[in-house]
């Protein structure tokens, strides 16, 4: 927290200028920014669709858009948000930027592969955008068969190809992180000295590498059945429609953890820095990430409780689903305990951490309703499920992502954003989020099914509340976009460690040099050992 701040003369942002220096870069930090541009674009496309969905649902009759258009809107909202925002957001933006710096390395293990991952992601996105522009997709993001293979007349194949292609970028990024964390840690950076963000990124990468091939094959089978009329899923030609659901959820349930584990890692960092204190129960939090990654692969059947699953397999998937809740609960308790006797900050990143813990707690607890099979029968496929997973993915993942983006923004950009505006935005996001999604729990238990373009009039009041919340939430998401962009040019210069936090990323300049550190750090301390060490960088 030096009083005079100077931008270092050489850093990764001014090391090469012009479009080519960005599009051909192998610097993980620049690739992180390429991803930032990509995921931000898709976030606002997906968000625009959500806005139209909520506008349509203000009235019980389908009046704003046609039923066909409405179905395409929620489908593309899901596809874009899941595959092109939530899954890549934290790993590919914050992970890319931070993994090498946090372990004291110069770059990822495979820098060219890293750049290739971004191109693959963008090409996949292009296919999916083409599917939208060429008329849209109406299968739901879940592509349930036989609707997607024999009934839908929309652009299933281009969208499926887009997801198939983008999957490779997840696999390659995951592989890159795993190898980097295994092989490129600085001297003294043992596994149990790593920041918890790396443990959760590592666990996420395992799921990415092991799970993504399954969705790739599944989505290819859908395209093949559509084009060549193979009988994989269509019962009229001997296929089994439920087989698709098993294959789809075998990836797509772990994918929920691909989305939320990195956010949990971010929150561990935010809480440690926000309390200037080690995370309570470091090893428990670290192993909880791995436990979630492993158990997450064994619970897919809880999406099929009403899909003709046998009573006993339903019971097995139910008990496993309860078990996967335990490591998540352990994390919440440990984060909360970390605050005890901390030096607790009320700065923006910490506000997002509070928000994450609160919303993730509600999301997790409502997951228990869904794991309890007798209750799941009533609430599955209703707005209760919508509310639940938005609490996890929007309340959890996006809160974590925004918190992380604010926390590391001074490091990424070398500039400070407007703290007052940022706090207001965090408050708006929290209020808007709860107003949008809490009424949906009640709607779901009342019985409003998901994916309904029109609904019985007695559900209107709660839907209007939800739509009002969504408009507040939209403001909360647009604000950071504005003041973060503004800070790039007009923000005050950031010191190398504006938060007084520990961690290798705070021991190099803001922004860091291309090679991250002027000399390879030697680590002799555990993660989160406060008070912060003297800054070791040479400017």
């Amino acid at each position, binding site marked *: 927290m030096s009083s005079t701040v100077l931008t270092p003369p050489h850093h990764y942002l001014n090391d090469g200028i012009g479009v080519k220096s960005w599009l051909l870069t192998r610097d993980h930090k620049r690739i992180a920014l390429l991803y930032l541009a990509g995921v931000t674009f898709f976030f606002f496309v997906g968000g625009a669709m959500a806005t139209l969905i909520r506008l349509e649902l203000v009235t019980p009759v389908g009046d704003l858009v046609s039923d066909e258009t409405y179905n395409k809107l929620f489908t593309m909202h899901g596809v874009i948000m899941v595959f092109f925002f939530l899954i890549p957001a934290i790993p590919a933006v914050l992970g890319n930027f931070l993994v090498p710096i946090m372990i004291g390395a110069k770059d990822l293990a495979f820098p060219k592969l890293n750049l290739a991952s971004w191109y693959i992601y963008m090409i996949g996105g292009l296919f999916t955008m083409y599917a939208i522009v060429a008329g849209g997709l109406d299968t739901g993001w879940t592509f349930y068969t036989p609707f997607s293979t024999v009934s839908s007349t929309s652009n299933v194949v281009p969208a499926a190809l887009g997801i198939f292609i983008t999957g490779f970028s997840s696999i390659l990024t995951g592989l890159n992180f795993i190898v980097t964390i295994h092989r490129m840690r600085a001297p003294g950076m043992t596994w149990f000295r790593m920041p918890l963000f790396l443990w959760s990124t590592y666990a996420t990468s395992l799921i990415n590498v092991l799970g993504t091939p399954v969705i790739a094959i599944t989505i290819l089978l859908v395209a093949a059945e559509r084009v060549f009329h193979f009988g994989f899923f269509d019962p009229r030609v001997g296929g089994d429609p439920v087989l698709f659901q098993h294959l789809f959820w075998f990836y797509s349930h772990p994918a929920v953890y691909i989305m939320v584990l990195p956010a949990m890692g971010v929150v561990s960092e935010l809480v440690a820095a926000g309390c200037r204190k080690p995370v*309570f129960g470091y090893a428990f939090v670290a192993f909880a990430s791995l436990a979630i990654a492993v158990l997450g692969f064994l619970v897919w059947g809880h999406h099929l409780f009403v899909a003709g699953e046998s009573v006993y397999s339903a019971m097995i998937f139910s008990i496993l689903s309860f078990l996967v809740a335990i490591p998540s609960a352990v994390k919440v308790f440990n984060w909360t305990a970390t605050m005890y006797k901390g030096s607790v900050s009320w700065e923006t990143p910490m506000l997002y951490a509070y928000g994450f813990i609160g919303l993730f707690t509600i999301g997790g607890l409502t997951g228990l309703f869904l794991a309890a099979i007798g209750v799941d029968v*009533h609430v599955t496929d209703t707005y209760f499920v919508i509310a639940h997973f938005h609490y996890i993915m929007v309340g959890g993942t996006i809160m974590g992502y925004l918190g992380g983006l604010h926390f590391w923004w001074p490091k990424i950009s070398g500039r400070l954003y407007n703290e007052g505006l940022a706090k207001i935005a965090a408050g708006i996001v929290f209020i808007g989020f709860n107003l949008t999604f809490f009424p949906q729990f009640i709607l779901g238990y009342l019985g409003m099914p998901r994916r309904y373009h029109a609904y019985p009039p007695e559900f209107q009041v709660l839907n209007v509340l939800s739509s009002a919340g969504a408009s507040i939430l939209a403001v909360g998401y647009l604000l950071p976009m504005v003041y973060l962009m503004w800070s790039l040019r007009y923000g005050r210069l950031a010191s190398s460690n504006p938060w*007084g936090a520990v961690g290798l990323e705070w021991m190099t300049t803001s922004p860091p040099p291309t090679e991250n550190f002027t000399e390879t750090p030697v680590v002799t301390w555990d993660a989160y050992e406060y008070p*912060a060490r003297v800054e070791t960088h040479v400017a």
Partner: protein
Amino acid sequence: MPPLFPEQASTMAGRVDALYFFLIGLAVFFSLLIAGLIVYFAVKFHRRDPNATGARIHGGMALEVTWTVVPLLITMVIFVWGSSVYFAIAHPPDDTLNIYVVGKQWMWKFQHLDGQREINELHVPVGRPVKIIATSEDVIHDFFVPAFRVKADVLPGRYVSVWFQPTKPGRYHLFCAEYCGTRHSGMIGEIVVMDPNEYEAWLTGGSGEGSLASAGGKLFADLACNTCHRPDAQGRGPVLDGLFGRQVALQDGSTLTADEAYIRESILTPSAKIVAGFQPIMPTFQGLVTEEQLLELIEYVKSLKSQTEQPTARPVPANGPAPGENTPVKK
């Protein structure tokens, strides 16, 4: 004021809601606990000196064990409770009133055993367990009655059943809860729960088409099934009398219980399961019978009691062919 809680109109509703309220209590308790601690710590330990750091506390085994074991025990209680409710939902009583439903984009077609047919509206008596046996003509649908707290995916190519016992006369929403295409939100209907007397009156005021089994019997003859499946064991196909619910020995040595799915498969894909002692000579009826006709045929086979129970050589369908129909001779 909008409704905040759905009506309870079946014997299952109270059981599901009891667990739901327990879970709400639990969720409120833990949410308030975490939120309370966060707010309390954030205020009490707020950083006032910009250079202050927190206490050097790394963890505590007793706390870790506590907050691992206590949630584990609580979730196991929910697991057992949730499973017991699910068992009740999954296992209908023996004496159900059976009604068939075929879902298609975008309507529900009901067939009562007595022959009444309804679309997007189902009349049932109060106080009697009702079992819906459902299949789909096209994509996956889902039969969902919020007031009864029951839901089941309706799959093409399979029969799924869902049961409920209404407790209050009234009209209740029926929703399709599995996304099925353009007019998914229009695939809705009503369950009309009636007093038993009114229900009887409604039944007798029906269409007069004859029972489902009799329609199946007529079709059985029209399709010339009876040339091979004869009641006297002299036919080229197995005797169907008393078949339903019985163990069937197959050529490959395995056995199975004859249920709706087996009969359906044997009509559409006869070569899939060959009964021991018979030749795979039956042609497929795929494309020749609709889902509704399949249900009639199944109901007819169900009505064929075994020879020992019913001495008549050829059980006559209860109501006989509907008036004005042709005599079922087609040779």
